[in-house]
């Protein structure tokens, strides 16, 4: 049986072991808290993505349709003789539910998933109409698969009746598998009447590399 004096440095060693355990728990706790903070920042599920601050971005208008070209008498063009501060606009019907918009391949887009696109258009809300069953859609397409489909229902916007209303949708461009993949944006009319859209615009926001300022979009 070991002698009692053999144990004289056991207690300090055990206490040191306990202190080390305490330090480990504290370190682990700090790691956990840091991770939790990060998660709170990144895991917020939002209805709409929004580019809050464009100051760290370089903008470029990618497409713009004012529908001022073409003859309204040509029914294949679906134009009407009324527009938003202009003479013509595009008319959506049940058999022509999709408006012209953005169609661009990723190989033609600068940057990667740090880019945003802001798509906007004017829609005419007829006086007395109950709703405007229409979506502003932005989506990425890979081999006929919509990888990130975001839509904004126009009828949920606070529309002013008998006037042109501006509808806007921000969209964070995701990192896609293939350079041939396509970024699309358009209005989609789901009703059985008619709907007018005008001045469809897509503006690309490309992040500017800055050594002093690193602006991360809040998504």
């Amino acid at each position, binding site marked *: 049986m070991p002698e009692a004096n053999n144990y004289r440095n056991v207690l300090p*060693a055990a206490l*040191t072991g306990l202190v*080390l*355990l305490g330090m480990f728990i504290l370190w682990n706790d700090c790691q956990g808290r*840091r991770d939790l903070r990060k*998660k709170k920042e990144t895991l917020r599920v939002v209805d709409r993505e929004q580019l809050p601050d464009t100051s760290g971005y370089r903008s470029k208008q990618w497409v713009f349709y004012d529908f001022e070209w073409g003859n309204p008498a040509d029914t294949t063009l679906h134009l009407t003789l009324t527009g938003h501060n202009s003479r013509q606009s595009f008319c959506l019907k049940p058999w022509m539910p999709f408006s012209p918009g953005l169609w661009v391949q990723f190989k033609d887009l600068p940057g990667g998933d740090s880019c945003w696109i802001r798509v906007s258009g004017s829609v005419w809300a007829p006086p007395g109409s109950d709703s405007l069953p229409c979506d502003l859609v932005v989506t990425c397409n890979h081999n006929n698969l919509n990888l990130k489909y975001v839509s904004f229902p126009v009828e949920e916007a606070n529309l002013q009746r008998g006037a042109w209303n501006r509808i806007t949708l921000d969209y964070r461009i995701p*990192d*896609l*598998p*293939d350079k041939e993949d396509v970024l699309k944006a358009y209005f989609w009319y789901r009703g059985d009447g008619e709907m007018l859209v005008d001045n469809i615009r897509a503006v690309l926001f490309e992040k500017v590399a800055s050594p002093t300022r690193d602006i991360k979009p809040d998504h």
Partner: protein
Amino acid sequence: MTWFFHKDIGRFTDQSEIWSDRAGYYIYLPATFFYHFDTRQIPSDLDIKTGGGFSVDTLTNKIETKYTYGVALMVAPFFLTAHLASVVAGYDDENGFSVLYHRMMNLAAVVYLVAGLWFLKRFLDRYFRPAVTYAVLLLIFTGTNLFYYSLIDGLMSHVYSFFLFALFLWSLKKFQETDLYPWFILLALSLALATLVRPTNVILILVYFFLDALRWKTISDRIKQFLQPKYILVFLLFLFVLFFPQMIYWKYVSGSWLHFSYRGEGFTNLAHPAVIPVLFSPVNGFFIYAPVALVFIAGMVYMLYKKIPNGILATAFFLIVTWICSSWKMWYFGCSYGQRPYIEYYALFALPAGWFLTTLFKPGKFLPKALLFFLLFLLIYGNIRMTVSLFRFERCYYGSTWDWDHYMRSVERAGILSPIRPLRTYENDFENLALSPVRKPSAVYTRSGQYSIAPEKNNPLTPLYSVPLTFFGDPTPKWFLAETWVFKPGQRPTGASLYYTFTKDTTLLYHDCLELDPLAKDSFTWFRAGKTFIVPDLYDSTLQINLFLRNPEGALLYIDDLKLKFSFGW
């Protein structure tokens, strides 16, 4: 502490004390004192309400439990106390299922735990100084699953077996020292009771012959002594007296005096024991859930190396128990915390642990000693956190035999390591029945282990995996590789496919599939089916990834060893 754990736990839930296996052990008491083994007196859904640990067969008028009545006998004083208190206070005892009975069962486990630790201390005092003895007790209680099976699942048999083992060792030691007959009676009684509580405990009898035996002559003398009528007869008498009520029960339930109640289970793997999974699998592996047990092993090695008495005995017992556990059909013992059949043997493994700590307590370099203490404290801390986490979140381990990714996330969820890593892989070898997507896994054709799954004929979609997208955190995966092994017994096309869906609530947003028929080159051969599936880049808390085996014609085929690997970049 046990009441603290159970303070918000109601009755008839999987966290309540009298549930499932625990109810199977306990039912002998209410069946004897309240229902008189007459099913007409039992509430019709009692067996379902208590988790199916026993069954009530109204056709044959039988209450069936596969467990022996040893645990019920051990907790009977607490049961009777609860009954007496209910009568005196005019409290509705609900035929043995009121809250008071639940709390008394919690108390019973703790009383036997404390008594077991006390007897173990008296035994260890014969070998080690008090500091070492107390350290061993602390290590065994807080560093192993004894903590869980005494404070949380106290109606399982293990804490009672542990108590009886400790009592046996102490009385054996006293008997060896004094050669007084009353000590033999005590050790024989504890051995017979331990055998009743868990029949495999009968191997403890080997300790009687081998403890502290330095020569073969000592062993042969002990055998001769044991075979003397005044010794063996009293042991057999205890066995008979204790087992006779059990035999009456077996006669009642099966018509036979001897009855193997574990139908469909048993030691089916005696020739091919699952030793490695039992010791190291994330599914209840011995060293994985009680890493402090490495101290036992280190102590055994030390004892063998230094030729310290009982080194061979402890090592042999470790090997025998490992073989027994590995041979059991369900080698991971269902919804357990670690390998619970080892718990009672911790009383014996306390010897090598004591020798290891004795060497640790010897004068030596301060820093390695402090680091070793840190490691031991860390393992104790980890065990307690894992125990609480298991109690709070899920009683079953929902991982595959070698799914370390799932295990590490369990460790991280318990707060032992931070931060929690995102889900990267998923595996299912269909050995863990808690993960089985079908009611009955198949043992006909298997690629690995004992089981594969065959889709149920009346169900065209067998769910293989499902996970909410939010489970991944940020970022979400961009694609995943699904790989499984398929066995097609016939030549005819099955129309079966691996079917992936991406859903929002109940709306299908995207789907893809992998047809299995073109991949099957030969029938009666396992073939690999693998495909990459794209996860649409969408943010929503209700999005879900699902993988099915689609079998529209109800064809016969088997699936085994499913693996998913999620990728977060292209």
